[in-house]
């Protein structure tokens, strides 16, 4: 029983960076911008956060540094995609490749550092409840931030005027411009804000999850977060649940590895990636369903008219 509680807890903890990154990507995509740079952004944020933590010993500062680094790169991305109208696929990929190289380069000096594990405080009082205590209430604050973020995003997109406007821009930037809204700036804001969240997720991995630096340590979470946005049909609550499920799969394979299950360890390590493929296949099967839910202008460049 206790084991199950621990599994749930670790699934949630492991899924949190995926959830926060996916929520950031949902903000990007709801505005119509496809951000293929998520992996590179998370890597850069991870090293920025880690380096800050090493020098300042302040976890909150480190997380902010990661968010900031990613937001900065996203400002550059926004300039290229929105004003210079470069190809969204190529530019996003360029960002991922650049981020990968940059993080490896900067990270060289930090491979031997270890931040040491922080004691997890969880929610006082609630963390002592039987089963639910260890399962849900003994997490790092950022985990709860993730849940609150999902709730806030849902309210934002479907009840607030700014969220409505963002969705409108994502559906038809031409119509939004006809109404007099500064579409390019709105998209830029969405890219940067979403980017900050993606960075936060990346920093969480290197500062909280595994307080070490290893080149390429994000190991595809940026890409998985992209798959999650489609899986969640761009709805924040579904993205959160999907992220936790993924976290569960990742934790399950570690669990099985630890149990000495007689399956090749490489197959277990490949499990999250195979699951992502499975999820993509399941969700994409019905193109009409996707088209009905997808922000209509996603991936298409916006020409503000001569």
């Amino acid at each position, binding site marked *: 029983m206790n084991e199950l509680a621990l599994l749930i807890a670790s699934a949630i903890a492991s899924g949190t960076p995926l959830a926060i990154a996916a929520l950031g990507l949902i903000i990007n995509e709801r505005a119509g911008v496809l951000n293929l740079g998520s992996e590179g952004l998370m890597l850069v944020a991870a090293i920025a956060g880690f380096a800050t933590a090493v020098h300042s010993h302040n976890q909150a500062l480190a997380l902010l540094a990661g968010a900031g680094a990613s937001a900065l790169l996203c400002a550059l991305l926004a300039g*290229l995609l929105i004003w*210079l109208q470069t190809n969204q696929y190529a530019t996003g990929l360029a960002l991922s*490749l650049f981020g990968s*190289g940059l993080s490896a380069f900067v990270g*060289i000096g930090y491979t031997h550092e270890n931040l040491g594990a922080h004691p997890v405080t969880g929610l006082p009082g609630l963390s002592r409840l039987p089963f639910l205590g260890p399962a849900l209430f003994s997490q790092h604050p950022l985990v709860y931030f993730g849940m609150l973020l999902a709730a806030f995003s849902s309210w934002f997109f479907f009840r607030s005027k700014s969220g409505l406007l963002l969705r409108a821009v994502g559906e038809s930037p031409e119509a939004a411009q006809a109404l007099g809204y*500064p579409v390019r700036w709105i998209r830029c804001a969405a890219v940067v804000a979403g980017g900050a969240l993606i960075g936060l997720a990346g920093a969480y991995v290197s500062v909280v999850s595994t307080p070490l630096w290893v080149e390429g340590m994000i190991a595809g979470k940026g890409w998985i977060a992209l798959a999650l946005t489609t899986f969640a049909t761009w709805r924040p609550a579904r993205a959160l649940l999907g992220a936790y499920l993924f976290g569960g799969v990742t934790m399950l394979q570690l669990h099985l590895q630890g149990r000495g299950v007689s399956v090749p360890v*490489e197959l277990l390590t*490949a499990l999250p990636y195979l699951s992502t493929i499975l999820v993509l296949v399941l969700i994409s099967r019905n193109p009409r369903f996707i088209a009905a839910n997808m922000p209509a202008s996603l991936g298409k460049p916006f020409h503000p008219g001569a």
Partner: protein
Amino acid sequence: MFKLVPRAEPSRLASLLAPLVALALTLCLGVLLFVLLGKDPLRALEMFFWEPIKNLRAVGELSIKATPLLLIALGLSVCFRSNVWNIGAEGQFILGSVGASAVALAATPESSPLLLAGVLLAGVLGGMLWAALTAFLRDRFHANEILVSLMLVYVAEQLLSYLVHGPWKDPNGYNFPQTITFLEPTRVPRLVAGTRANWGLLTAPLGVLLLSVFLRRTHAGYKLEVGGLSPLAARYAGFSSQSALWTTLLLSGGLAGLAGALEVAGPVGQLTTQVPLGYGFAAIIVAFVGRLDPVGVTLSSVLMSMFYIGGEMSQSRLGLPKSITGVFQGLLLFSLLTCDTFVERRLRFTGFRRSAPRVP
């Protein structure tokens, strides 16, 4: 104040100049970076642009890097022109090396040299198989090929790890994750004495020639081009997007697989976890910088190889981590994408007044 306005026709001049301007921009940023790191920029430039070509041996090393980059990038440029985003070339490269190794490991010292052909063919097939997975999932289930091909890279890495840690591990290899060194009949013979360049180098110009003809002078190439530029026009004309998907993926998978086979049957000589060098990703940059054109890709693959070698030299001679190569490659692509804007658009100075917002 300034506005980007569309041109009536894409500018050919800008199209030719963009890669050069991008390179110049990258160089400036590079020099800046070296200065900031406290290294002599002139020495650094020497590492990147002179050392790789200064003698025959160096050119041989260059060719060993340029050939796989070129092969993969040729395939990727066909894919990208058709809007098929094959990002998993690294995985196809790995499967190529695995396929080649499977045949190579079956060799005995008496095996005929023709076995080498089998090795290379197995590599091509391995790469094609891996790419076919992506094609199938996109064709049948509309799954996004970017994410699927990418996830398959991670899976391929695990497969490789499994094989060299387990069934294919060299029993006399001190428990290192590697296979035996392949036997003579399955190794690609040396092309030029005094260098490591091997016969595999010849696949490069052959590939460029065949692909050029294919893209520019055949109907199939024309159909792919239309499909990439205007999918609705392609559908109107009756060009099958399904066949475009399979053709481009199998082609690039096969080329990446061939590159992988040449790598293990050539300079490396065995299968290890260190075989994948990231060429599958670097080739994406090579393809774009080369303008998705066979001749351009030839030039950009040489350029990128120089970056690789320069990076390695910077590590041994200047004490800079060789991952600096990755930074430059990324910068080059960003610069190119920025410069590319000016092919379809030009800058117009609109005076100092704020203009009224426009409505379609």
